[in-house]
């Protein structure tokens, strides 16, 4: 008998961004219509209450103003409910003082993740990979980045990519390797050298995590220095 395989669609650069309606932490959205006239950085993360994602969300939140200056709206997504997203955002605010100022799409059934090819079965069949779709003010996909579950993204690179796309549009030019709009130093501190401790997978481990000598923001979010 012939084998039947499900073909998962993968939008490509130059395609119109696939449309969907969904609930977010900031109310319902109709995508991409509601974002017309703005650039959108639409990014997925594997799951709420996971440590690498938390560092990414905090980094995006801290750079939100820089994105806003460039007429960019950030939009997150994971295969979780809106209640889980809200609880996680509140947890991050409580533990770090940083508010998540952008909406997070609740995609509990994975409908939007499938539409955007954010599920890579070789990596995980239930958690979205770290995908980034850069969508222009006319709703066209202009760049796509994929990272695996284990490596957090560099938000400065995403901002640099926005600058490169906007500069190319404005001046009819292309930008070379390592191009930046103005001389700048990307600062990396001691904090950037720390790695994430895999989060506990049982209640008992979670309870004991705080006693293990890691730098913990919460039970699921601990870092350490490699010796």
């Amino acid at each position, binding site marked *: 008998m012939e084998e039947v395989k499900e073909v998962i669609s993968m939008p490509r650069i130059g395609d119109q961004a696939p449309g969907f309606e969904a609930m977010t932490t900031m*109310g*319902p*959205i109709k995508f991409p219509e509601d*974002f017309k006239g703005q650039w959108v950085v639409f990014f997925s993360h594997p799951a709420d209450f996971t440590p690498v994602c938390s560092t990414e969300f905090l980094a995006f939140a801290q750079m939100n103003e820089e994105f806003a200056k460039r007429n960019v*709206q950030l939009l997150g997504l994971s295969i979780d409910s809106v209640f889980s997203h809200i609880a996680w955002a509140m947890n991050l605010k409580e533990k770090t003082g940083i508010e998540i100022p952008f*909406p997070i799409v609740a995609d509990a059934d994975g409908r939007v993740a499938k539409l955007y090819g954010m599920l890579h079965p070789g990596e995980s069949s239930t958690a979205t990979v770290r995908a980034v779709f850069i969508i222009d003010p006319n709703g066209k996909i202009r760049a796509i980045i994929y990272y695996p579950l284990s490596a957090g993204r560099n938000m400065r690179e995403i901002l640099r990519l926005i600058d490169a796309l906007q500069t190319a549009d404005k001046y009819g030019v292309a930008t070379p390797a390592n191009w930046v709009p103005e001389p700048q130093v990307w600062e990396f501190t001691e904090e950037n050298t720390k790695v994430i401790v895999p989060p506990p997978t049982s209640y008992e481990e979670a309870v004991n995590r705080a006693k293990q000598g890691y730098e913990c923001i919460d039970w699921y979010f601990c870092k350490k220095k490699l010796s």
Partner: protein
Amino acid sequence: MSTGCVSPDGRLSEKALGLLKLLEEKGALTPVEIAEITKRPLFQVRSSLRELTEAGFIASSEGEKYSLTEKGRAALS
């Protein structure tokens, strides 16, 4: 999907009444103008405008300008 502007029994939230009052005061406005005045994200403004349009309180004309309908004016009186 509700943005919380209009409850199932047709009552308007504070946020929705604020939007209708703004349109009464300033006349027809685009979503971008409303986002600038209210300091709310553009996508959220468009979402609220859609719900209020579907409920018949406002209507849009050419150029994506929104203004009050008779029902919208009545809701404020």
